[in-house]
């Protein structure tokens, strides 16, 4: 770490210091209110079954590297059993009235909220993200998705008038490790609302909350086989998307895997939606509310350790305020509390896995080697576990790898622009197109920019805000299809008639 800059430019006499007078005592969330089973089986046909492979793999707490549980490794036969269970359940589930399906979804949402604390703790342990986020974002939003989609279950005819919406059949869903429960909810809720049945494959490194969600399904009395959860590695996912019994594949994850899946479903009568990577730009104009923009940029890149496909990883600042804004960011970054994810005052937790940490280190090393200036605030990182300090590169250009490739970690690349036209050109100069952020006080400029951004979500004077009613999805290599809102429901129905464009 040769070119690391630890101090801000202003001299000590006129600099701020933090944490020297009044410190927060540790405030860890208790974990004695629930237990994690030593071994987790597959959830198929409403029952917990042992994998036919006889194999299990460990899932660890990224903050401590302690093994949390052993999880079943599903092979081809297990995948087949899960798809068959979903096919069997589809016969009854599609015949249920929308009102009855809604009842189940409402029940799931309510139970999830009742067990909110347990889910938040488990998610934090298995994923490494701070309890503050699982408590205030992940779990409430997951419940909101069930509530929201419950509302559509009996109103499909209103959503697609005159087009006789029908469910597709069995949906294979493969989800990532960055928002394990939330992604499960995003996928399962609309599928069930539309009358489909599901085989879900959670990420290898974060399977515990999706498995616990099956307990909620049991508690809610969801008919067996309507949702099946199979755990495993990449091979399990590959077996699932190749299974001929699927009517649709929905995937959230890396662009690389997304392309493989697209190849796997080519030539088959299988619908596909992909929600892939991103390299979102934040555009900060000189007339913006700068202090609030700083908060937004921090939220944009350091939320969930930067493990967010729509993370605002490229900051484009108008040259006239570049120095001021970067100074503000440095001071703000110095106050990010990195450490024990279970502590209620922790702002940034652990990097999710050793593999991801290696990827972040590799790209950060490349940024340094190619002459960009790295700033990391002083922060004591725990000895065990996977950790990376909040990082900011200045002096970045569009030709640097760190401005082009998705790092998927707490690393911000700062670039500059001179005119709105240049800002748009740079923002769109990427293979991705998932999200963008605009920071300006001028209403007309907001609209002018939003029109020109090639991104699925454009946030104005905020960032990383999610709502079940708001469609989410990308352009270009960020994938296709939308999740959430009416547009998200379109991905789970087959339409006839076609009075309106689908």
């Amino acid at each position, binding site marked *: 770490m040769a070119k690391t800059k630890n101090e801000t430019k*202003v001299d000590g*006499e*006129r600099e*701020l*210091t*933090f*944490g*020297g*007078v*009044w*410190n*927060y*005592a*540790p*405030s860890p969330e208790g974990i004695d209110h629930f237990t994690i089973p030593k071994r987790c089986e597959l959830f198929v046909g409403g029952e917990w079954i042992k994998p036919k492979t006889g194999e299990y793999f460990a899932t660890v707490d990224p903050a401590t590297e302690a093994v949390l549980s052993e999880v079943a490794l599903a092979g081809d036969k297990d995948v087949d059993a899960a798809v068959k269970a979903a096919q069997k359940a589809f016969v009854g589930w599609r015949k249920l009235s929308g009102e009855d399906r809604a009842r189940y979804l409402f029940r799931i949402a309510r139970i999830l909220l009742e067990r909110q604390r347990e889910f938040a703790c488990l998610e934090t342990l298995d994923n490494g993200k701070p309890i*503050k986020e699982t408590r*205030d974002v992940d779990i409430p939003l997951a419940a909101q998705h069930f509530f929201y989609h419950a509302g559509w279950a009996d109103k499909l005819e209103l959503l697609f008038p005159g087009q006789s919406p029908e469910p597709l059949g069995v949906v294979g869903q493969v989800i990532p490790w960055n928002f394990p429960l939330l992604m499960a909810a995003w996928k399962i809720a609309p599928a069930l609302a539309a009358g489909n049945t599901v085989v879900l494959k959670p990420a290898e490194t974060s399977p515990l909350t999706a498995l616990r969600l099956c307990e909620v399904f049991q508690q809610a009395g969801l008919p067996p086989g309507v949702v099946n959860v199979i755990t495993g590695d990449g091979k399990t996912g590959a077996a699932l998307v190749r299974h001929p019994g699927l009517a649709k594949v929905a995937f959230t994850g890396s662009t690389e895997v997304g392309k493989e899946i697209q190849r796997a479903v080519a030539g088959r009568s299988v619908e596909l939606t992909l929600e892939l990577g991103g390299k979102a730009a934040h555009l900060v104009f000189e*007339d*913006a*509310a*700068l*202090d*609030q*923009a700083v*908060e*937004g940029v921090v939220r944009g890149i350091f939320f969930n350790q930067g493990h967010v496909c729509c993370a605002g990883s490229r900051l484009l600042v108008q040259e006239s305020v570049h120095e001021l804004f970067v100074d503000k960011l440095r001071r703000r970054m110095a*106050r990010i509390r990195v450490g024990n994810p279970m502590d*209620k*005052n922790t702002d940034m937790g652990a990097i999710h896995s050793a593999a991801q940490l290696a990827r972040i280190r590799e790209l950060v090393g490349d940024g340094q080697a190619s002459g960009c200036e790295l700033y990391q605030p002083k922060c004591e990182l725990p000895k065990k576990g996977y950790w990376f300090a909040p990082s900011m590169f200045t002096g970045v250009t569009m030709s640097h790898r760190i401005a082009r490739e998705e790092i998927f970690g707490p690393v911000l690349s700062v670039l500059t622009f001179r005119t709105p036209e240049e800002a748009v050109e740079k923002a769109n100069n990427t293979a991705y197109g998932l999200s963008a952020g605009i920071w300006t*006080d001028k209403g007309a400029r907001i609209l002018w920019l939003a029109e020109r951004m090639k991104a699925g979500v454009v946030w104005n*004077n*905020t960032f990383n805000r999610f709502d079940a009613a708001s469609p989410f999805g990308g352009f270009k290599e960020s994938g296709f299809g939308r999740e959430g809102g009416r547009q998200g429901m379109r991905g789970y129905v087959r339409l006839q008639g076609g009075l309106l464009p689908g």
Partner: protein
Amino acid sequence: MAALSPTEFRVSPVDAVALETRAADLGTRSIKKASKVAGLQLAIRMMDLTTLEGMDTAGKVRQLCQKAMRPLPSRADVPSCAAVCVYPDLVPIAVDALRGSTVQVASVATGFPAGRTDRATKLREVELAVAAGATEIDMVIDRGAFLSGRYGEVFDEIGAVKAACGAAHLKVILETGELKTYDNIRRACRIALLGGADFLKTSTGKVTPASTPPVVLLMLEMVRDWFLETGHMVGVKAAGGIRTGKDALKYLVLVAETCGDRWLSPQWFRFGASALLTDVCMQLEKERTGRYQRATDFSAD
């Protein structure tokens, strides 16, 4: 001084939603055990114990002074308040009652709370309060002038009051509840900073809303940036509507995470409150003994 145009008090905009989000986010900090005790004790040391009522009497002020010096008579580890804040005519009583203690005497002035009187009367009031022994003056800005865009007048008046204060510290009350928008508050802060304020103060306590976390966050950002710009430190006083120890701790979190160590002292951050002290004492006793005490165990002054 020639009248100054609005452009001279231009400030960058505030995004209300994001400001309130940040204040609410900092409000979720979990302050427990040792940090809670230290925070509550600091809150007492930062407190301007206040009585500003038509029914104030010498007796009432003496009671308040006693409480400010020894908030919990049985506990030596509970510190004194920063100041007692009264109307100008009661300054001599407070000066007399607080003699020999560390507690300062603050006086409101300049036609508090509305400020609707002429400049000469305002300045005379300040002079009288200072002559009577007040070491801190809490003035109100002319909101009428501000809201009609006569920013230069507001600026001039602050400068004149500052001159009349002499060695006394000047706290400039913006009455944020009447300025309404965060952009207005930001501009009023700028005017007060340029005018020579030693402290920016939110409210008189006579208008609702009084102090709120987003407003105080905004003011802290202003004094922080002023310090980085000029090297000159200015304090912030959150006044009105702060009733519980829990609220006070939330404000301390705003200070700790916006301005940092330098401002975590009675010299640079104050609470203006009348009911807050009793709850803070109650919380401290709860932390010490592990249970809540009866309300009657605390002085009702």
